[in-house]
């Protein structure tokens, strides 16, 4: 039997080792699935983070007022988190001036820090790998990075950090997870 390797995504039919067969099969030996665990780490830069505190009462209503004005300012937000007395979120760095204008007009207590990056840790079907999200976060914190926010998708964990720490965090995660993959 001739073994022919075929890359994922390639659809070149290869004759199967049966005489007179009409069926074309992909290949006798193909890696069908992506490896489990962390496959790639990526850094996206150019974000700023807003923290609003002491919004007053009723807190839910005050949060809504802020979000309404931010929306009216045409500013898109990500990583919205409720904090005990306010909220925080991420915006594109290019929208910092516009957000300053909105928040100043509301006369609120806030901080707005640019120089934020998002580190994306890609791992296919992350929910099926029980404990992996916690493990990634543990590695990040133990590595000395301050993680300001965290979120997840079906195939990645997203962590908001200071841009100056982003590459260090990426290296930490690669060392903790991808070296182990290679070693296996």
């Amino acid at each position, binding site marked *: 039997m001739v073994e022919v390797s075929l890359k994922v995504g390639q659809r070149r039919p290869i004759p199967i080792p049966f005489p007179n067969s009409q069926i074309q099969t*992909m290949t006798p030996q193909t890696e069908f*699935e992506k490896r489990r665990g962390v496959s790639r780490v990526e850094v996206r830069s150019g974000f700023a983070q807003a923290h609003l505190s002491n919004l007053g009462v009723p807190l*839910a209503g005050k949060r*809504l007022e802020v979000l309404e004005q931010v*929306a009216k300012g045409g500013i898109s937000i990500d990583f919205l988190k409720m904090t005990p007395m306010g909220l925080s979120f991420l915006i594109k760095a290019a929208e910092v001036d516009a957000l300053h204008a909105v928040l100043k007009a509301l006369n609120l207590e806030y901080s707005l820090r640019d120089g934020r990056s998002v580190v994306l840790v890609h791992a296919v079907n992350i929910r*099926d790998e029980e404990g992996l999200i916690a493990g990634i976060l543990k590695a990040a914190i133990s590595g000395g990075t301050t993680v300001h926010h965290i979120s997840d*998708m079906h195939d990645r964990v997203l962590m908001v950090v200071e841009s100056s720490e982003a590459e260090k965090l990426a290296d930490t995660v690669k060392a903790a997870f991808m070296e182990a993959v290679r070693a296996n």
Partner: protein
Amino acid sequence: MRIKVMKFGGTSVATHEARIASAMRLISAKEQGFSPVAVVSAIGRKGQPYATDTLMQMLRDIDPSVTPEPRELDLMMACGEILSSVIFAHTLKTLGHSSQSFRGGQAGIRTDGVYGNARIVSILPRSIIQSLEEGHIPVICGFQGVYVSGDGSPGAELTTLGRGGSDTTASAIGAALHAEAVEIYTDVDGVKTADPDSVKNAPTLRKVTYDEVAEIAHLGAKVVHPRAAEIAMQYGIPLWVKNTFSDDEGTEIVTREVFPGRRVTGVTHTGKLVYLQFDLSSAPDNERTLLEAKLYEVMAEFGVNLFMLNLSPMGTGFAVPRSQFPMLRDVLDGLTVPIGGATSNIYLFQIGLKASRKVEAQSELLQPLENIKRVIAELTEGCSMVSVIGHEYLQQAGVFHRVLKTLDEAQVPVLQTSDSDFSLSCLVPEADTNRVVRLLHDGFGLAEMV
């Protein structure tokens, strides 16, 4: 030869009538000129005699204090699909169509050596091809493969593929055989904009992208398993979700290139969550970091599935499935973490505002020592995560406001939010789940989607 792989889930093989309906799908495909290949799940769902959960429970019932070996569990669970495939193949024979059943290993599915959650590493579908060429309808057991160590060990070890394993089998077999299509048959018309239990008459989506369906599954809806979608995407195999019992055209799962655009796809929910918010404000910055690291190390070690994570200088929080909460409480409640250095503080974890007897006992033991600090986790039981799925759309200004305003007007408290490139989630009281799903479904005009 035009091959079509058709996978039938538990409800599609649960009764004789259901098996006849499923068999008729295969026969119809054959009459249309296809060479159909069936992949079957175990018969029925939880509680039924041959369902996977029932088989696992039989082992656990022998002595609940003894955990079955993963190898033995895999062998036990695989019996469900073996029974199903043989019964289904014989059903086809009674309808006048020659059929052969195959275990995963007989179908050439080789996996890595991880029991209970194996990944397919290769497929050598010679037996299936031969079966098709001889005019049979092959019926393959879903959810299973074999691991061949390569170190000279005799035989091959049976492995199971984990959650959604039968969908994965169908996609992988479809890829190996260059199938024209893989069709996943179930008891709903396709991928819906919401769970029909929450939104009666939720429309069936005609097209969704692979990444949308993966995110829908990630956030709680039971549709096609992401692994199956990924394999189909990687190998360019058209994938469909259809209803065994209706003639609805179903949902086609396609690539983003085929179906681009900004849209809201649906609303999903994950119920039965417990939310924990750890107050770390008493710890100095460096010690807070060590406590967080310890906390997440424990979560990783015990395989806890975390939702709605958040971090702040005041502490950290997350939701966990209710099923994992007793184990988590057992591990964390009363846990002491000594931190050396200048302060030499000892932190005692307490789950819930009222200290348990375990925590009180631990506290008494530690009393002679100084610098004992408590880390109290505020507990909110009975939570649900309701998520709006929508690629690109959710990045528009004002979407967060729209969601939160909708829930505020309905007087639904939002405990926390989380978002990503594909979704926006709110943690809400479990009792409000269906109402929140309906509110957001209506709010985004999903009832009009096709």
